[in-house]
């Protein structure tokens, strides 16, 4: 039960932040959504099996494939988050306040 709950809360918080004005909230929203999807991937492999998935692991060993997926996904999310923050910083350095709406148009 804890898996769906965590995913649900993270997605709700992420979507809430995405829908708020301001670009930093956009970045944070995507970070939360990324976490939500990572937990979802973990849950896809089954949350009840907890033993480490080493060579010749028993019936209780966790599914290694979703863990590999998550590792890849974390790397991608991290890289894109850094790029988004860089864009944000560039806008701030130019002295222009980041626009209130996400496409810079009137609210």
């Amino acid at each position, binding site marked *: 039960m804890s898996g769906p709950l965590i995913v649900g809360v993270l997605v709700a918080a992420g979507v809430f932040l*995405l829908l708020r004005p301001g*670009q930093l909230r*956009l970045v944070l929203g*995507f970070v939360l*959504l*990324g976490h*939500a*999807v990572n937990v*979802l*991937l973990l*849950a*896809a*492999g089954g949350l009840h099996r907890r033993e480490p998935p080493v060579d010749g692991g028993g019936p209780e060993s966790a599914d290694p*494939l*979703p863990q590999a*997926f998550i590792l*890849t*996904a974390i790397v*991608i999310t991290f*890289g*894109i988050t850094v*790029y*988004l923050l860089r*864009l944000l910083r560039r*806008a701030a350095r130019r002295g222009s306040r980041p*626009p209130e709406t*996400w*496409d*810079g*148009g009137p609210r």
Partner: protein
Amino acid sequence: MSVLLIVPVVGPLLAAAVLLALPDRLMLRRIVALLATAAVTAVGVVLLVATYDGGVPVLRVGGWPPVVAITLAADPLSALLVTVSAAVVLACLVAAAGTRDDRRRAFLPLTMVLSAGAYGAYLTTDLFNLFVLVEVMLVPSYVLLALSGGAGRAGAGRVYIATSLLGSTILLAGVGLVYGVTGTVGLADLAGVAREVPAAAVAGGVVLLAFALKGALVPLHDWLPRAYPVASPVVVALFSGLLTKVGLYAIIRIYAVLYGGDPAYHPLLVAVALASMVIGVLGAIGVGSMRKVLAFHMVSQIGYVLLGLALFTAASLAAAVFYLAQYVLVKAALFLCAAVVRATRGTDRLSRLGGLASSSPLLALAFGVAALSLAGLPPFGGFLAKFLVLRAANEVGDWLVLTVAVLVSLVTLLSMLKIWGVAFWGEVPRAARERTARPGVALLGPPLALGGCALLLGPLGGPLLQVADAAAAGLLEPAGYVRAVSGR
């Protein structure tokens, strides 16, 4: 033979690494990028020949067993798309040398990585690797858009990145759901699963939703006409040839393999296809620059391909594949024409253009051929493509589809005539008289070559049509692909 499958993915990535290390000698850097892309084009042609009679070359990278290995495979559809995309990248690299887009140090490496991701997405056989390769393709595109954009690039860049990120997040969630329901992400093991397990159909639907967003299908199209037109025309040509087409390819592949072309989804797909065609073409009427008009037509033309997929007969799938291939070439030709206009006149806003037909007749020729092909007039390739889609719709006896398809191509013709009438005929604006530059070979060559392809595909479209037939047979009956990929 199957070792060649690694070339389209690793070749451009290696070239990108070499380009980063090379000193600032522009000519040398251009040659490296062109050689890598030419090699991929050649490999694409070899793969086309190898897959034409139904063979499916499969490569398990590193020789791992099927469950663990990263498996690459080519069928006629993948081979054709790799070849056509590589040809577009080649044209864009030459045009970038003409417009001097590539004087920025990051341009060539980013283009190489972006194209490697696209080729890989066409060749991969599992959903998770599809996600990874789509990311490999998208991340350079964020940077390219931000680097090359003109006025309004900050806002457009935000729209583009936010939409793409949302699509990627949905895609990853969908892949996770598919794995949770079925315990696998390999396309071969998932064949037909959505017809048997309803939960798998829902999970696959999440993946398709993500690709519908990336492919800019109505009602998820709004980001494309906002984001693309701010980038430089060469970059837009690159994006239009690779990015949205990967989304479309993924939809075709997943619907054919996972859903086995389940007719239960026919009305939904037809509705999305018709809405894309109509809304895209109507959106193009009200905008004022060449790039914006062409961006709206992207949405509309994608609808025709989806229509071919929705009908899911041998004839309609062949029509969709033929349409996709010729449309990628034609659209790239049109955007590269816009690049020439912008390089010579400094703008592509229709209100500030005029008299291009007299100042550069070759450009007018390239644009005229590509525009008429886009509108679907004989004897160009676009006519054959539209005719094939219409004939397939006629076989099914769907009159609504027939009517809408014909009307949309009429409106397409009208908006191409609008560009022609305003920009190519008419008075040369006073501001442009003194500062008009003569376009060089690097600028004019690519659109002329691609326009020539559009012209030749009409009367000489037979070979491409045969490839499209082979691809359609593979989509209709994926058993051969599945057997080769799963190794059983």
